[in-house]
């Protein structure tokens, strides 16, 4: 299978191109009829393709360059967003954004991984791969949220923590570990949404919460399919097999008790219609917030402990 996500998207794109061509010409009844027909077909084809994605195809969809990123969801779902920067220790990491906003009027905190779309942005965002500063910034801002008793929304979308020399020197492992421990004890509601790629410890470092939601075509795994294939199959081109074997889709994770709810994406994936994806997600966030705001701080922490305490499957 090609690494080009457009391959299985091609029938959809072909119909879209035709609709665009037709839309450019002079309106006349025959043209209008053909467009209407194509639009019906587009819905059907997109639905068919996206109802039957393999785990590897989902990985490619989760990485799609037009997929809505954290800042897109913030723009579509939050008001008064103001980003703040830096870990107050070493620097600022643009692979993670953090700040304060309002969600449907409620003051709140938002953190999330951030990828870039064009080459310049991708480099600026370090391809969404955080360094320790990013995790420490996120924790600093989450602690501020706790201080002011504000709920936290966390958006997960990274292929993993950055495996670089400086990142190791400055304690990549320690930064992730501290986030896991501290997030477990935060006394405010923590709502997590896996919007794209949930890659390993770098994802989990923003992923300990009271509700974990996952978009329909997002993936979440202990290691990237390529990484797993390289180690266990000794061949990174076995990534589709690794994706299958590791059970990385929202449906799999729901069955394994790792996520709470799957948020449907529009036909053709969230990248086909980011606004529609956000429209679907909004009510989920609202309901989760409403439910969690009823709980006392100690109850929140206790329930969160029980939630993660249950995870794992073994024989006794």
């Amino acid at each position: 299978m090609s690494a080009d996500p457009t391959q299985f998207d091609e029938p959809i794109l072909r119909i879209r191109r035709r609709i665009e061509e037709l839309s450019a010409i002079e309106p006349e009844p025959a043209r209008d009829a053909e467009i209407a027909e194509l639009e019906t077909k587009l819905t059907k084809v997109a639905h068919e393709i996206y109802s039957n994605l393999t785990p590897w195809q989902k990985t490619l969809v989760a990485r799609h360059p037009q997929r809505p990123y954290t800042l897109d969801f913030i723009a579509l779902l939050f008001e008064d967003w103001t980003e703040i920067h830096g870990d107050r220790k070493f620097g600022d990491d643009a692979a993670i954004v953090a700040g304060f906003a309002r969600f449907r009027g409620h003051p709140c905190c938002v953190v999330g991984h951030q990828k870039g779309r064009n080459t310049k942005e991708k480099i600026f965002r370090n391809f969404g791969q955080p360094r320790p500063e990013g995790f420490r910034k996120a924790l600093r801002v989450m602690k501020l949220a706790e201080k002011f008793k504000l709920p936290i929304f966390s958006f997960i979308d990274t292929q993993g923590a950055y495996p670089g020399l400086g990142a190791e020197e400055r304690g990549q492992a320690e930064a992730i570990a501290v986030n896991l421990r501290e997030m477990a004890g935060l006394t405010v509601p923590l709502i997590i949404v896996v919007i794209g790629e949930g890659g390993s410890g770098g994802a989990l470092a923003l992923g300990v919460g009271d509700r974990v939601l996952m978009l329909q075509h997002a993936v979440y795994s202990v290691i990237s399919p390529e990484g797993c294939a390289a180690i266990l199959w000794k061949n990174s081109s076995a990534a589709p097999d690794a994706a299958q074997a590791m059970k990385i889709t929202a449906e799999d994770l729901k069955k394994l008790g790792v996520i709470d709810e799957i948020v449907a994406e529009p036909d053709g994936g969230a990248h086909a219609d980011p606004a529609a994806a956000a429209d679907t997600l909004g009510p989920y966030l609202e309901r989760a917030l409403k439910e969690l705001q009823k709980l006392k701080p100690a109850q929140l922490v206790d329930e969160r402990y029980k939630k993660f305490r249950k995870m794992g499957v073994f024989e006794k």
Partner: protein
Amino acid sequence: MPEGLWVKCDDCKEIVYRKEVEANFNTCPKCGFHFRLTAKERFELLFDDNKYKEFASDIRSSDPLGFRDTKKYADRLKVYQQRVGGGDAVLCAEGKLDGMPVVICAMEYAFMGGSMGSVVGEKITIAAERALEKKEPLIIVSTSGGARMQEGILSLMQMAKISAALARLAAAGMPYISVLCDPTTGGVTASYAMLGDLNIAEPKALIGFAGPRVIEQTIRQTLPEGFQTSEFLVEHGMVDLITPRAEMKSTIARFLRIFRGQ
């Protein structure tokens, strides 16, 4: 360590007398290299008179994903259970360290590279909860390649589960000492191994998050000499001290007394 009268040191490559290695806490008499220990050897090193009571030993992996790469995970498990033992990649025990009751978890590198799946996560969490309940210090001796891929996302979640249990221990003012041995990498480093009130490393251990090969491929340059060793981590402020194996028990005991205000 291989069987035989003589062994070759992995580090200085000298051929050394096995008995002399054993008399030196399984370290090389020539260069001080620390050979890997089994979990039981760790217990022997740390518990008084090698007396301890193992717990949570009846938990087994159930291959929750039906995982198969070039081999079935279920088959791999059987091989390791026969060769290494039924304890998976960690053993947990209670006993006394220099007279003080403690809970110790010792990882077993020989069991699938000490990888952490549901069983390791559950056993360590039980150990942390027991330490909390009995108000005993917790010591985790790590040696692990990281999370176990064959249990997928469930392995990743063990990082959160154990860290949450450690958060409770910390909130109760109970000491947790992390001992890092060769090698400690990946998800184990990025959770409990780095969360000790004290992170104590054995000399010259490989300790890191990403593996050296992955980093080299990412940055496309050779790594500096000594990168990701215990010594490198001390220099960069990530572990508190390096303690040779021969002094590990007495060092831990000294801190535990001081932490108790004695």
